[in-house]
């Protein structure tokens, strides 16, 4: 199936964003491991890879707005399901940690978990509209 112009623009923007993210992430890790840096500089350095992730919000919203109403509904329902599942799972895990010695989950995994669960949810939501 041919990609729409909006999908092509989205793919292009995401490619640039994730290339930038990878460069900034590895650059920040390398710089932090190579040089003795003051704490404020380390904080700025660790926040640099977040900038492209913020930019990807704009790319996603532009793409959803270019969709027709059924496609947008599928994406929004999937994202809602993804957000609810990750929120409930993290909340439940947090409660369980209070009474067990389960390890803490590094917060950096919440966003990928949301994206992953949303992707799985989209598979099922899409079927509902077929």
């Amino acid at each position: 199936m041919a990609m729409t112009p909006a999908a092509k623009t989205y793919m292009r923007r995401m490619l640039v964003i994730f290339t930038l993210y990878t460069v900034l992430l590895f650059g920040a890790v390398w710089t932090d491991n190579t040089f003795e840096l003051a704490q404020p500089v380390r904080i700025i350095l660790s926040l640099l890879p977040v900038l492209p992730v913020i930019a990807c919000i704009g790319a996603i919203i532009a793409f959803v707005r270019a969709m027709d109403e059924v496609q947008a509904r599928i994406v929004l329902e999937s994202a809602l399901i993804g957000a609810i599942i990750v929120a409930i799972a993290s909340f439940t895990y947090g409660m369980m940690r209070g009474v067990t010695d389960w390890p803490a989950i590094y917060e950096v995994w919440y966003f990928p978990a949301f994206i992953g669960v949303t992707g799985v949810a989209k598979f099922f939501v899409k079927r509902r509209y077929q």
Partner: protein
Amino acid sequence: MKNRIRVLRAERRWSQADLGERVGVSRQAINAVETSKHDPSLSLAFKIAEAFEARIEDVFDPHGEPD
């Protein structure tokens, strides 16, 4: 909401993709509206009626239950 999209398409020998192209939405969107899995926005309902050169109430029946 019941609709007559399938019948009107068949009369014109249009596929769902053909109708989608005429009103500017995906084949999937036409399928979802046609099978009453999605109630279209007012704007899309008017576009669909316009494509069939029909009145909106001749295409959609808000009181009818889907088949």
